[in-house]
């Protein structure tokens, strides 16, 4: 395990000067993950905040090779790069070793890119896919995705006289990915850097596809102050909204046992997108959301073979 001191001396593949918002979780996650790469990387990126903010022509914030193709196909695109690498290595046309990593938001991963991801995972490319989950289509202006939490306000699930934000529960993408039986799957958060660092290291070392689902708070979309990003991620973990676990060669393991969880309202409260849930009259919906969190946690414990 690399120490924090050692990490500060590692070269960043993503330089400063990019145009991501102040307080964006994406750059924190991206830099932390890429620090774990043991070889030069090629980055693939789905259309979204990370892509548009880091490659504004004629500038690029990437010190490694980078490819953006379209929205739904970061996984297929990086799988093509990896295939080319294998072919060119075999022919002696490429000497150096590379690692391949694709970044997509939750829209580009849970929704429109799910098929491309599933196909690439099943084919077994040696690649790391990172979902930067900020829980909505933030780049187009906060529209709901299948990662948006129940009850959240978004511009396509507005709060009105008869609706109280997104009516549906989130999709459990990490479990769906784990069902592919790939060598390494993990859920991580930028608030737990050591855990994230360890997971990224395992992902790069995996002999086949690896997947990281990382909670990436969005000040704009979640409606909180931009100095609160890491705290928002931490609260997500402490309320059991975002459990930290990994699935290594089929073995589920809970990484952070949240023994005295805070109520989900503690996570919801600082976020403007949930403001309506804490207003009088929405107690039932709030209780429902807490019950969903508890049920998800219990299911995860069963999968991990943990008894409380």
């Amino acid at each position: 395990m690399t120490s924090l001191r050692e990490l500060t001396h590692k070269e960043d593949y993503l330089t400063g000067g990019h145009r991501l918002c102040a307080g964006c979780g994406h750059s924190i996650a991206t830099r932390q993950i890429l620090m774990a790469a043991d070889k030069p990387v090629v980055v693939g990126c789905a259309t979204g905040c990370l892509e548009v903010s880091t490659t504004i022509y004629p500038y690029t914030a990437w010190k490694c090779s980078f490819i953006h193709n379209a929205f739904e196909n970061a996984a297929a695109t990086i799988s093509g790069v990896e295939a080319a690498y294998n072919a060119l290595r075999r022919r002696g046309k490429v000497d150096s070793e590379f690692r391949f990593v694709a970044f997509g938001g939750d829209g580009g991963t849970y929704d429109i890119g799910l098929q491309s991801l599933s196909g690439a995972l099943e084919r077994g490319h040696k690649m790391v896919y990172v979902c930067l989950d900020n829980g909505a289509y933030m780049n187009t202006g906060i529209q709901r995705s299948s990662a948006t939490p129940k009850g959240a306000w978004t511009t396509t699930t507005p709060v009105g006289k008869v609706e109280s934000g997104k009516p549906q529960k989130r999709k459990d993408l990490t479990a769906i990915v784990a069902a592919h039986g790939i060598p390494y799957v993990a859920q991580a958060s930028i608030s737990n850097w050591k855990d994230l660092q360890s997971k990224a290291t395992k992902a790069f070392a995996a002999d086949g596809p690896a997947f990281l689902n990382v909670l990436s708070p969005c000040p704009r979309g979640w409606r909180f102050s931009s100095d609160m990003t890491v705290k928002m991620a931490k609260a997500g973990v402490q309320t059991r909204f975002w459990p930290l676990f990994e699935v290594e060669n089929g073995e589920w393991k809970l990484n952070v046992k949240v023994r005295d969880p805070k109520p989900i309202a503690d996570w919801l409260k600082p976020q403007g997108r949930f403001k309506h849930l804490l207003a009088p009259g929405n107690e039932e919906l709030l209780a429902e959301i807490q019950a969903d969190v508890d049920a998800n946690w219990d299911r995860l414990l069963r999968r991990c073979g943990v008894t409380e």
Partner: protein
Amino acid sequence: MAKTVALTGNVACAQAMRQADPDVVAAYPITPQTTIVEEFSTYVANGLVNTEYVTVESEHSAMSASIGASAAGSRVMTATASQGLALMWEELYIASAYRLPIIMHNVNRTLSGPINIHCDHQDSMGARDSGWIQLFCENAQEAYDTTLQAVRIAEDHRVKLPVMVCLDGFIISHAIDRLDILDDDVAAKFVGEFDAPITMLDANNPITVGPFDGLHGSFFEFRRDQELATLGSVPVIEEVGKEYGQISGREYGLFEAYKLDDAEVAIVVLGSAAGTTRVVVDKLRESGIKAGLLKLRSFRPFPAEQIAEALAGVKAVAALDRSLSPGAIGAPLFQEIRSALYDQASRVPVINYIYGLGGRDVSMPNLEQVFNDLSQVAKSGQTGPVIRYLGLKE
């Protein structure tokens, strides 16, 4: 020594792929392309190629992976048809805009609905503005020859554009045809090694592919550059076609002018129907009718000036389209042929025949009818209905 063989068009294409030995093939099966990827799979399974074969889960991913692989600096080939081409539509534009020399067979099949697996050119026509070079083939021999030439054209540093090799579904893809195949070493020498000018796999020189053009706005210039590259491919297509003639005895150009020198009436057509038309031309010539054929090979780039010159002396022209553009003035080939002839002083009358949609057969009597109609137009000077239909049950 080249050898004469009997193969389906699809197997002939697969053989050319084997000889070009691409680094990466990312493909998804679809009727009537399937036997290309099936055949190629057997080469992979038997170690006859050095290819990484990426068995993607859709055509969208086929083109997405092809783009990644090509940007990484490898030779990439794929194949599709119809709905598959439609599914990869957005990716076609990205492949050409990134100037990636991907080679793809499109085994022409109509687009649903209703679902129909047979030949027409509406799939290729839908992609005509995507920035791909589009070469149409008449038979299995041409499909084989064009595949090898496509590698050279696409990878030429003056071009660097993807090439779509179009062959008629079933008519070419599944019919067993007699053709000559080059020796492996001759074919390999002709296509050469792929020399990628830039690659993502140079650790000392990292590159960013596909940046965002949102703020500084060079999009217009990029698109114009792409157009210039497409136009610039004209001499390359001709050069490569000539050079191929030297090793095979079969020379290729932008189009074939058959008995056009003294022709009074002429048909312009793409693909396999050119074969039937040639037979009809010969038959009519025997009875003194000065018929001719312009078989267009390169639809993109569209060699307008050369076509106008070739048709300058003709009195009436019919453009035969295996596609239909609802609400337009005729179908795509007609529109471009008429446009190419508009600036000629002679202003040759051009009529449009829509034929063969969804695999409807085009027969010799159909084509004789076209020539008869053209003779009437030539004689009377009256064009009559501009858009007509061949073999439509009315």
